[in-house]
């Protein structure tokens, strides 16, 4: 492709519009469900991969912009693609490719009418996300931002016959809308009264310190609500499980990332002049979010809900990276800032990949067994070997274990936090490593959580008698998971390529990238600052383990023997090993529940000693409902109650209102 004929922006716009077109085709041909599932969705996947290529192209290319012939009369839709947008488009395209492939298989048995609607909403969702990433004026951004919320809302409520899903959808859209209001307000503040609402004008507007901080807080709140940041996360564990699994994957994997994109776009690009206090805010919220997310994830037994809480956690980790970057940039250390930013962005990509994979895995389980409750699963590795393998890769990646991708970005975040001695303020300097410790804690807890998930779901004995033997996922589904699992491996083993791309993004945003020494290192070694400070080579890492594995295996066989005998499990000789003696998912989380008891709101029903049919019940709830949301709802009710009293049905009173209004105005007018 010659750049003079086609700009990245044109490609991106065209592809997004094709997505919308595909959605409409899906709706139009909803009487031919085979066609929709086996032609429209694969075509969507094709668009995804092209979009990813466009994104990659745009990272390296100079920014290109265009104006679309639509929008408000004084503010037509401006679109622009730069390195940051390019990176996120790459993320969107790359992840949605796998998800769309999976969707082909997943939706193949869906009812025709629903499939038509799904196709429209799904592709509009994708397209609106793409447009969010390339929007270059406040209006287009808001329109696509809310379209994204709206289309995903309809996807969440696909199965609206369940009360839970309806409630989830409502909370989701409400929080999204409130967040959007805050973002809108932020644009208003940024605008500052001059020019129009293109990002270019917003960028150029000079804000005083106070208003810049206000704008930052509004953006942080608004995008934080979408990202699922504490304490605005409540919608997330409700909405993600409610949606069909490919949609959960898309929401968790990609949609949350648009919030990160928005945050970076507004804070770094539009507001500019970052202060370290802002960074500290982001950092602390990030740390709290990540710890809270993983603690609640450990309390869950609904697989998709658990994964949703992990999205909260990972958003926290991303925010830690970005917060670090802001602290450094705000204190005048752009190189360290670039490291933090790259760590945050890389984790954004990694999370998208492995969380997408895990949600797809959960979808595959749901589809073949009909189960979402971990306490009823068990031993699935024997029925779904492929899914089990992909899920294992995802689980190891999310647990930040080397040599997979999750570890790389957490490692980079740690490296960024270890730049703390650069900072002048001793408070911040000591806070940063503590945040790093929190990150370590949540990383370790994630490991525990995924041992729980994998151990309970795939390993052990099955706990629930299924009507028929679970069937392995279809080819399309497996292809989708394979794509993402391969991405987990590739991003984990060859991080240097992507770090190089991210360096471009950072150069474009904060005019600083990693140090020259870091960029000079070859593909084998990941070096954040200098090789004396730290380095990491996942390939060597993996190779050594693999070689030792193989050698040991051979040597043991050579020197001794490979004889094997099968028998019943031993288990200290206890007889009657039933699946009821295994830990359930709830049981596995018990140590955490006990250690962090004050964090949770625990309700227990303990049977009495003489109960003939003893039942033990326990539920863990989120305190935020009671601390934050209930009081707000009550206060609104209280206000509306009082306003309602004004209107009491008596016409004389109404006349009196008119009369008093008139008198008051007359007095005022005089």
């Amino acid at each position, binding site marked *: 492709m010659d750049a003079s004929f086609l700009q990245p922006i044109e490609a991106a716009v065209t592809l997004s519009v094709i997505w919308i077109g595909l959605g409409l085709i899906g709706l139009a041909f909803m009487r031919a469900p085979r066609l929709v599932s086996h032609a429209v969705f694969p075509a969507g996947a094709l668009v995804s991969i092209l979009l990813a290529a466009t994104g990659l192209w745009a990272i390296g290319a100079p920014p290109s912009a265009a104006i679309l012939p639509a929008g408000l*009369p004084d503010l037509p839709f401006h679109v622009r693609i730069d390195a940051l947008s390019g990176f996120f488009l790459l993320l969107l395209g790359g992840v949605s490719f796998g998800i769309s492939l999976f969707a082909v298989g997943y939706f193949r048995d869906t009812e025709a009418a629903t499939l038509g609607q799904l196709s429209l909403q799904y592709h509009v969702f994708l397209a609106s996300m793409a447009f969010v990433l390339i929007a270059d004026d406040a209006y287009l951004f808001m329109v696509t931002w809310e379209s994204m919320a*709206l289309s995903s809302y309809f996807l969440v409520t696909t199965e609206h016959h369940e009360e839970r899903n309806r409630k989830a959808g409502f909370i989701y859209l*409400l929080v999204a809308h409130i967040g959007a209001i805050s973002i809108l307000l932020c*644009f208003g503040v940024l605008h500052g009264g001059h020019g129009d609402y293109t990002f270019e004008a917003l960028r150029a507007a000079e804000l005083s310190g106070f208003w810049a901080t206000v704008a930052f807080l509004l953006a942080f709140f608004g995008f934080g609500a979408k990202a699922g940041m504490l304490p605005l996360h409540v919608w997330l564990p409700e909405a993600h499980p409610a949606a069909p699994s490919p949609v959960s994957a898309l929401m968790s994997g990609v949609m949350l990332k648009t919030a990160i994109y928005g945050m970076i776009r507004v804070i770094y690009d539009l507001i500019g002049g970052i202060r370290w206090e802002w960074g500290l805010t982001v950092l602390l919220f990030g740390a709290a979010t990540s710890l809270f997310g993983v603690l609640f994830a450990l309390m869950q037994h609904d697989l998709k809900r658990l994964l949703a809480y992990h999205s909260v956690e990972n958003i926290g980790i991303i925010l830690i990276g970005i917060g670090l970057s802001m602290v450094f940039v705000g204190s005048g250390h752009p190189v360290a800032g670039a490291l933090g930013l790259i760590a945050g962005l890389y984790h954004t990509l990694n999370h998208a990949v492995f969380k997408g994979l895990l949600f797809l895995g959960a979808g595959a389980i749901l589809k073949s067994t009909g189960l979402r409750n971990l306490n009823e699963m068990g031993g699935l590795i024997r029925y779904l070997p492929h899914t089990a393998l992909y899920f294992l890769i995802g689980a190891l990646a999310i647990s930040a274990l080397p040599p997979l991708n999750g570890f790389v970005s957490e490692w980079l975040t740690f490296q960024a936090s270890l730049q703390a001695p650069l900072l002048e303020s001793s408070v911040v300097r000591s806070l940063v490593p503590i945040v790093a410790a929190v990150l370590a804690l949540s990383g370790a807890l994630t490991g525990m959580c995924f041992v729980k998930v994998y151990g309970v779901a795939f390993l052990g004995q099955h706990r629930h008698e299924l009507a028929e033997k679970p069937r392995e996922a279809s080819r399309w589904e497996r292809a989708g998971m394979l794509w993402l699992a391969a991405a987990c491996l590739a991003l984990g083993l060859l991080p240097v390529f992507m770090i190089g791309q991210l360096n471009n993004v950072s150069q474009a945003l904060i005019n600083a990238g990693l140090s020259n020494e870091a960029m000079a290192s070859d593909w084998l070694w990941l070096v954040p600052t200098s090789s004396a400070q730290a380095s990491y080579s996942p390939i060597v890492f993996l190779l050594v383990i693999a070689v030792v594995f193989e050698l040991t295996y051979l040597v043991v066989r050579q020197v001794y023997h490979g004889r094997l005998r099968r028998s019943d499990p031993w288990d200290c000789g206890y007889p009657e090993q039933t699946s009821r003696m295994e830990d359930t998912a709830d049981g596995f989380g018990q140590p955490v529940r006990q250690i962090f008891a004050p964090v949770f709101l625990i309700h227990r029903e303990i049977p009495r000693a003489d109960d003939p049919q003893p039942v033990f019940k326990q539920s863990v709830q989120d305190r935020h409902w009671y601390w934050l949301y209930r009081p707000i709802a009550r206060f609104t009710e209280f206000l*509306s109650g009082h306003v309602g009293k004004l209107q009491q049905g008596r016409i004389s009173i109404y006349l009196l209102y*008119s009369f008093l209004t008139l008198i008051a105005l007359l007095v005022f007018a005089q």
Partner: protein
Amino acid sequence: MELLLVLGVPFAGGIVLGFWGHREFAPELNSGMSLLTFLAAAVLTVHIIAGGPILVWHENFFVDSFNVFLVALTAFVAFTTSLFSRPYMRIELNHGKLSPNRLRLYHSMYQMFTFTMLLALLTNNVGILWVAMEAATLTTVLLVSLYRTPASLEAAWKYFILCGVGLAQALFGTILLYFAAEKVLGAGGSALLWTHLYEVKDQLEPTVLGLAFVFLLVGYGTKVGLAPLHNWLPDAHAEGPTPISAVLSGLLLNVALYAVVRSKVLVEGALGTHFAGHLMMGFGLLSVVVAAFLLSRQKDVKRLFAYSSIEHMGLMTFAFGMGGALATFAAMLHMTVHSLTKSAIFFTVGHAAQKSGTQIMDNIRGLIDSNPTIGWGLMLGSLAILGMPPFGVFASEFMILTVAMHQQPWATPFLLAALGVAFAAIFGKVQPMVFGTATAKRLPHPPALIPVFVHLAIVLLLGLYIPPYLAEWYRQAAQLIG
């Protein structure tokens, strides 16, 4: 010529349907008349856009971009509503809620109501404007009380008394206006003509005009539904036949606001201050907030959307109050999209209520199952009215809010909080009606839902793309009054 048709067709229609309004073909006749009116209005609009403002019949009628825009909107929504009312009123007749005589009254008054609204919009005479507004009130009182149930009588009575008293204040304001104008323009007809008044607006006596505006605002403001003068509005919307709720919300409120805006321009010209604008902003903001908080207490679906109308009228009043080209532009766009969306919502709500046999929201469930088009219509309509992009309501709200943030930063938190509360309230109530398991039955006549989707499609279009000629038209109008 078109003007004659625009006014003559509905007037004649009112008389003709007064005789034949109970016949089998009456609903079609009603639609036909409305279609003719709409076509005439369309031709008129084209002429005005192409040729500029016109003054006809001894300057008694005046058409410029501002009012022709409202005329077109009024005629269009009146036409689509008449389409909707065809099956709707037949079903009501089948359900035994109406007698053929009442149906005759309904059809006749429907046309008369259209006529009075168009008259109010087109006249150049402040006095005739008042007369038309009063006549519009009278016709709608009859329409609201059509079912003769206790609730509808109560609603109509309140409507009648409150708006009657309100309009009496407006008449006093008109008298004061005439009083001031007479000094400059001399006694006789010309002193009440908008065109003449505008020409001399800076010579008019400010003290008198200030007082006149207070009376006009209280008067027409009652009709707009500005808090705390709004109390008739939810009752009247909830108890009348649904087509009437649709035109009340979608059109009559606009016409009343039109009167307020015309007065505001005049008064601000005379006073040279922002007095009138500030008053309008205050009332607008109060309405938005009060309505938002009342929304969450509603049980009746039509009442719910009536309060939503108050909220939106408040928003428009606020925007017109701020003045300036952009805010006025936004307010007019909001007028358009609100009319279209709100009437579409009432169409779907009407059928939904008919299907479920109740207007109580708790008893309406699962519309999307029992009738997907009604369900989707209501869902999309509600989302549109809540300002969800990509619908056009968002476009206008975006402009209003951004201007507000710039010009009246103190007001924006209130506006935004109210919008948030309104969102939670309306959406929290609409969602369970649309989703879930159905409780509805089949209707004897297939519902007319094409108008719903036509309206929503236009609103969607306006959110993404405002055609240049439309924008130009709005701009001209904004120039005129901004």
